[in-house]
């Protein structure tokens, strides 16, 4: 018995298995026939898709074109928005007017005699005053001492 005998025995065993199974192996003819039967509907569906897909694509493209065409152009939309803003501005200003607005239009009351505009000192910031507070508020008596 050589060293290759076990290998040959294994090959023989596989060959027997192959022979056992080959006895029940189908012949090619029915497989081909069945394959042709199965391929026919596939070809039909492929032909149907070849027609349907371009049509669907064209419909989608038309819809997209219609949507884009019906939307206003950017310039037109901008000018329309500008016109609308111009229309709305007076209304918005009117709504801000209050009952005291009329006082601003009337002349200021005259100062009492002995006072002139120059006597009213400009507001100064005191170093001791809290931040943001004027010295005139901190010491009101000094304002009219002269």
């Amino acid at each position: 018995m050589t060293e290759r005998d076990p290998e040959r025995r294994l090959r023989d065993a596989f060959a027997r298995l192959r022979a056992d199974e080959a006895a029940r192996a189908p012949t090619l003819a029915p497989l081909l026939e069945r394959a042709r039967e199965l391929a026919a509907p596939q070809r039909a569906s492929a032909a149907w898709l070849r027609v349907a897909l371009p049509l669907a694509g064209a419909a989608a493209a038309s819809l997209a074109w219609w949507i884009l065409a019906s939307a206003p152009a950017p310039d037109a939309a901008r000018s329309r928005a500008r016109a609308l803003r111009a229309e709305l501005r007076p209304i918005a200003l009117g709504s801000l007017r209050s009952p005291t607005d009329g006082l601003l239009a009337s002349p200021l009351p005259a100062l009492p005699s002995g006072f002139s505009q120059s006597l009213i000192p400009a507001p100064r910031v005191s170093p001791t005053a809290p931040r943001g507070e004027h010295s005139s508020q901190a010491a009101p008596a000094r304002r009219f001492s002269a």
Partner: protein
Amino acid sequence: MTRAELEDALASVLAVSRGWALAQTRWNAAEADDVLQATVLKLIDGRARFDGRSSFRSFVFGVIRQTARERRRREWVRGLILSRPAARAEAAPRGGDAPSPEARLALSRESARLAAALAQLPERQREILHLVFYGELTIEEAARVAGVALGTARTHYARGKQRLRALLPDLAPEGGAHD
């Protein structure tokens, strides 16, 4: 390759292809025949084209393996969608599947033993041994069909033979590959 050449080439590898389809479908004859049918359909309608870069036999084996995997995956997804645990379990990736009792009855005693021993091997080892010994491919071709590197295929080949030796002491496979 013309249609007539394709049919001739198919006829010459049909029997051994069915054996490979059986190995890929747990020796389930009905499933194997479906896989073989789907493979023939793919070859005829041109979804699988032979480019001549390998032997026709290894090309067909590759298509069969791919088809069986697609089928298993489809069945698994179908089972998942329909929430059928039985279908999921049946379609789940397997390793170490024994031939069905009907399949065993159809084989001789020795062939049934070999099929049962092969079924106990890990999937990769079983595939490589089946491709080399049953399909009579070289290890390189078997590696290409199984989608593994040549070195990996050699390892699976050696380990598979070692395991078979333990499972079938009277066969005691030893020696080198015929690549």
